[in-house]
């Protein structure tokens, strides 16, 4: 029998935190991302290649989560908003102050294009029993993050495995 609190068990499989992106997909961040990994793919730098292959500019597929990471500060916001809120909810409810991500799967759908405004939601898939690792004692959890564009086209799904833990003293 699982020792997982009932409240957290009730979260599993629930669609939550549906939100629209705070800003349009834009090329400035595309350049910054490409620069950070020295990605010279002409799809992101050469308009003719982009036009011929993808009917215009697109964003690197791996940038999917970038379009939903909240601003570090915004007017009227008392505390920094958190991306992947379910992850932080789990840390808080399970009283596991530290966490790391261990696995990440991204499945890509329609290309994301400058000017798109994406919509996302999160689904908690599972939470493990308590495990002992070299980092400390805690639990693994799996969270799906779904993404669609403003037309409702599926653009991708991210699946994160996180480990929330308390450091061994």
């Amino acid at each position, binding site marked *: 029998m699982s020792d997982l609190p009932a409240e957290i068990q009730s979260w599993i499989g629930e669609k939550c935190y549906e939100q629209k992106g705070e800003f349009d997909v834009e090329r400035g961040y595309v350049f910054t991302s490409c620069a950070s990994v020295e*990605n010279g793919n002409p799809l992101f730098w050469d308009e003719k290649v982009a036009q011929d292959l993808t009917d215009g500019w697109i964003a690197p597929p791996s940038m999917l989560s970038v379009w939903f990471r909240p601003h570090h500060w915004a007017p009227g916001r008392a505390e920094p908003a958190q991306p992947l809120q379910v992850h932080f909810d789990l840390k808080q409810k399970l009283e596991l102050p530290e966490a790391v991500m261990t696995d990440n799967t991204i499945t890509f759908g329609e290309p994301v294009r400058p000017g798109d405004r994406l919509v996302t939601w999160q689904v908690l898939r599972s939470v493990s029993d308590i495990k002992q690792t070299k980092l400390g004692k805690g639990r693994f959890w799996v969270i799906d993050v779904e993404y669609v564009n403003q037309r409702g086209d599926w653009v991708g799904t991210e699946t994160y495995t996180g480990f929330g833990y308390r450091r061994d003293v």
Partner: protein
Amino acid sequence: MTGWKALTATELKPGDALPELSVDVSATAVVLGAMASRDWRPMHHDHDFAVNRNGVKNIFLNTPNQAAWFERYITDWTGPAGRLGRIRFRMKDSVFPGDCMVFRGSVESVATDNTGCAWADVALELAVEDRVVTECKARIAIPAAEGDNPWKRRGDQWKPRGKEADSRVGLRAASRR
């Protein structure tokens, strides 16, 4: 089109190696990667936080930036006509400033699905000092032959999950909050 080559399925076979890529990691690279992915969490820019709160030796590369590195490594090999379908990676250890990252990979299979889309499944690794710190599997659509373009595929013609059942349909619509 200007100066690029498309890798096609006819050129590939299981066991083929991808060209190795080596990158020296600086603190700037870690911080730039975190900022580029809008990841403001302190363990990716604040040495004191990383050491004294997280218990690691330094700031370290964040997850979305590792995804960006793998994407770059893959499309350096395929050329721009290569279209990522799925990427899955497991981080076994962190990448820190001062590390030399080495990316390696090999083709596991080449197949054509029932829509005619050609797929290469590749196994990749990111190593530091011959220690694999991240393992990665990727499924990439590549032109079946010269003139084919995977980016033109839409809807039912695009199957990035392959044979894997899509368990994500039928999500419960109720919101928790």
